[in-house]
């Protein structure tokens, strides 16, 4: 017993000193190495008379545990000190800039198209597309605008052949024709896309974007048209209330036709949609002309409905305060960066159209 106690006392006091890791390791070996003092004591257990053996073993284990834990604590203490010293040395100026990142953006027209699709999706429209190059029939004739019709003058058309048979579509309405030709009614589609007119100044670009809408079914009337557009405009501008005015107009492919104005006012240099007594024309629409339905083999006695065409660029300008149409297509890096949208900002119904 006294041996054990001696060993304990001796090493406890040793371990109280300021020790290096090597010195601790030496102590460890001295105690628990192959011929260490505690290890040697364990070897003697068998020689201890049986009635004392139990107590001896218990005492020995107690001392072993005590010393072992003292050693571990000592090592931890030294490690901790070392880490602290290292940390002290590793202090950096955290205000230095991070690794550079590049932030991409989606064009405001693309974002607006996604917003429009999201709104119309909710009331059951699906998206159709058509080619940019169209034949004269789909762009004009089928849309009740035969050759020598003065309404053709309203469209300054880019032609791709001398006979004027192929052209760059002047509106998205030929998608109506394509859609109705390939399927059977009912139809409920929107068709966003590029459109072209040979016209270029501050407010006109030779290329711009339109979204066409078409809803043909039994008993679709002008009230549905008004309801649909009223809903769309409210959702798009994310306002509670809008002022909307239907004005009679004329398009060869719809009858009755209307142009739609929305009320706005300018406040602190910013346009506010839905208030005020200024009017702004934003789209054309009407009931699809029976001649158009006949041209695509839909029976106008059974089916009727409405169509509309909205200038997408114009909508984007209004919503996001962009003044110059031509800047959309100028590709100025600074402009794209400012007016572009983060690709993660996908317009959806549940999280809203925009932040």
């Amino acid at each position, binding site marked *: 017993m006294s041996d054990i106690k001696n060993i304990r006392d001796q090493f406890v006091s040793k371990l109280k000193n300021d020790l290096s890791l090597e010195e601790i390791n030496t102590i460890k070996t001295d105690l628990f190495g192959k011929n260490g003092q505690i290890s040697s004591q364990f070897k003697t257990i068998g020689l201890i008379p049986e009635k004392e053996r139990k107590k001896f073993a218990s005492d020995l284990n107690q001392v072993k545990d005590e010393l072992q834990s003292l050693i571990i604590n000592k090592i931890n203490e030294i490690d901790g000190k070392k880490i602290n010293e290292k940390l002290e040395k590793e202090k950096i100026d955290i205000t*230095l*800039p991070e690794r*550079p*990142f*590049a*932030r*991409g*953006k*989606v064009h405001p*027209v*693309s974002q607006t198209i*996604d917003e429009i*699709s999201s709104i119309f*999706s*909710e009331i*059951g*429209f699906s*998206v159709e*597309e058509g*080619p*940019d*190059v*169209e*034949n004269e029939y*789909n762009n004009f004739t089928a849309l009740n605008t035969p050759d*020598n019709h*003065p*309404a053709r003058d309203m469209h300054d058309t*880019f032609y*791709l*052949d001398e006979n004027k048979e*192929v052209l760059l579509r002047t509106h998205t309405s030929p998608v109506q024709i394509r859609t109705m030709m390939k399927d059977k009614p009912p139809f*409920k589609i929107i068709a966003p896309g590029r459109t072209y007119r*040979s016209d*270029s100044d501050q407010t006109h670009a*030779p*290329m711009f974007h339109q979204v066409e809408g078409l809803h043909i079914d039994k008993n679709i*009337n*002008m*009230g*549905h048209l*008004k*309801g649909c557009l009223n809903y769309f405009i409210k959702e798009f501008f994310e306002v509670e209330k809008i002022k909307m005015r239907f*004005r*009679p*107009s*004329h398009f060869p492919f719809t009858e*009755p*036709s209307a142009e739609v104005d929305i009320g706005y006012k300018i406040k602190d240099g910013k346009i506010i949609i839905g208030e005020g007594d200024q009017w702004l024309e934003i789209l054309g629409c009407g009931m699809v*002309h*029976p001649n158009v339905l006949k041209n695509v083999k839909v029976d106008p006695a059974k089916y009727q409905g409405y169509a509309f065409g909205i200038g997408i660029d114009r909508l984007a300008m209004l919503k996001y305060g962009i003044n110059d149409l031509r800047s*959309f*297509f100028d*590709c*100025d*890096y600074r402009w*794209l960066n400012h007016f*572009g949208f983060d*690709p*993660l900002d996908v317009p959806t119904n549940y999280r809203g159209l925009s932040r």
Partner: protein
Amino acid sequence: MKITFDWLKDHLTVNAKEESLIEKLTDIGLEVESIENLSEGLDLFKIAKIVKTEKHPNADRLKVCDVDIGEKEIKKVVCGAPNARNGLITVYAPPGAIIPKNKTKLVVAKIRDVTSYGMLCSESELNLSEESEGITELALSKYNKSIGKNFFNQASSNLIDLSITPNRPDCLGVRGIARDLAASGFGKLKQEKNKVINSKKPQTIKVKISNEKNQGCFSFGSCLITNVKNVESPKWLKDKLISIGQKPISAIVDITNYVMIDINRPLHAYDADKIEKRIIVRNSKSGEEFTALDNKNYKLEDGMCVISDDKGVLGLGGIIGGTRSGTEIDTKNVLIESAYFDPRSIRSTAKRLNIDSDAKFRFERGIDQLSIEEGLKKAAFLIKKICGGEISKIDIQKINKFKNKIIKFDPNSFEKVTGFKIPTKDMLYILGKLGFQCKKDKKALKLTIPSWRPDISQEIDVVEELVRLSGYDKIKIEEPIKERKKSTLTQTQKLFHFLQRSIASKGYLEAITWSFTDAKYNDYFKGQYKELKIINPISSELSVLRNSIFSNLIIYMRKNIDRGIKDLSIFEIGPIFYGTQPGEQNTVVSGLVAGKKSRLSWLEKDRNVDVFDIKRDVVQTLVEAGYDSEKFFIDDETPTYYHPGKSGRLFLNRGKDSIAAYFGEIHPNIIKQIDLKTESLVGFEIFLDNLKLPKKSLKDQKTKYSVSDYQKSERDFAFIVDKKINVQDLVSVIANVDKNLISNIKVFDVYEGENIPKNKKSIAISVTIQSQEKTLDVSDLDKINKLIIKTVENKTGAKIRS
């Protein structure tokens, strides 16, 4: 179409303010484009009398005039007009006045050292006539007591410019607009007095309409007025024309213009003495020519409708008259023409000759066929009244008889289209006011369409009239139903959106550029495609459809670099064209990256962007879109606009079915030729139409989940291979050694140079080996190691590096 409220009141009895007129016009579909106050500032122009003239001390042709502008005030005005003389009554404009003709504002000015306070005006400067020779001369007898008074009448109302849609020719006349307003409840249409010509004198110039095929004139009315004295128009007529921005010319011309605007009845006045014998209306023959009133000489093609005499072409019917038979101030005998021309014929002729005129604009939209006589009468009486002379009988030649259209109209169709109801009696009221004759015929109405409404031919046209005049505000809103029966986007459309946002998320700014481009730039990038010209481009820089998006992107890339932006990534997703038939287009995502990575970084050394940056963007995007990169196959056959050694072509699988993408450095020659100042330029093109849609939906893919928890080990190999061997083949050989055990292969070093034989390279590869079934022991691993080495050596001629 320009009108004034005052002119409208010639036809409309109404007691309302201009504001409510404007609102009403808009409400019934006659869109008000602009409202202009023509008389603004005109009150500054005064009737004045020259009381003294002296020669200008420093200029022979100038005079210094003392001008009495009323209330005993005398102004000194320097004037160059030869007719400036003592006692002349004329028009004085003070400093501050704006001259109507050139819109310049007068100031007090020194003219050769003599100060001039204002100006004496010619008729031309006041937009009263073409007369610019001298200053306006006002009759002493009439104006002597008016010195100091306003020259212009203040009463003239605002000029209202309407945008009349092409279906409404009837509203190209003031009366037509008045009729529409009256039908909507705005005022009452005045009855026209029906005057009768009681002449016994025949119209002596014989008129014949040739009845050949496609001849564009259906009827030709004429009236001869003899012994006239063509004079300046009276004030009321001049004022009328000036009030809508037109310039008076002479009584005869002014009268024909007035009738045209008033009742939309174009007329033409001939100097009857200049017509050789008779008038023949016929198709032109190729080679005929004439000089028109616009002083241009036109060479005609076959089949244009001409008015001719025995000498040849006098004019193009319904489009423009000729100089040979035009009326002048000394014209004695006038023949007035009032005819009907076929809109299609007018339009095709005007288009071929590129002529625009007021008459053409009206005829191509459709003139009231029954207004021939009314127009002639109106003009003849006015000429007689103003110019004197004798009116002949009216002569009307026709080759077909006009019959009013009659259609059936079911009153129920109104509610079916508009969603709301109006009583039948309201319908009858509106239609009646519009000039329809309505007869009840069982359940339907039998409508006789007025001759001035060529746009109305079926039921829906009548519905439009009724809803337009009832007011669109009566249409009730039907709230849309929130129900989706069909998915909004197709798989391809979803892929489009995905690629767009995926590329943007890699630091690219999305651009939208024209679908056409500069032929010069298109040439660099057109590759295998042929140039597609636009027949009528807006500029030579936008003359072809783009065969590639690169042409536009690189133009804008250079502009941005010139703005001082050095490191840029831009992309566009949109169409490229390979033919001019509908559908000969592909959707492409194309991007360009210029400059450096880590420019001016305190962390790391900068480097040029390179082909492996762009390759990552392409591969990562495709992987994100759901394609398996392990199946990708890449070779180096790229179009000539890429760097031949640093570009690649990517297929979604080894089958090389269609090209998914190109990527690489842009050819240095192109960069040099277009003078793009950047350290490096790389680009990619992903061909959306060539990407087969993944067969399995995400739903199906997710349900398959399996991972191995057995120990994996990594083994490194270094092979010495021929330089020709590419890494893709080497990796593929290894992958195929045992697909069950080899789970990942990474190339971590490629080395050429010292210690490696010429024409050889060393490739170091780390292979991850893991079984799905058990922990591999040493012998298993040894076996697979040996197999890898043996297979690679056999298949590629490589040697393992010891």
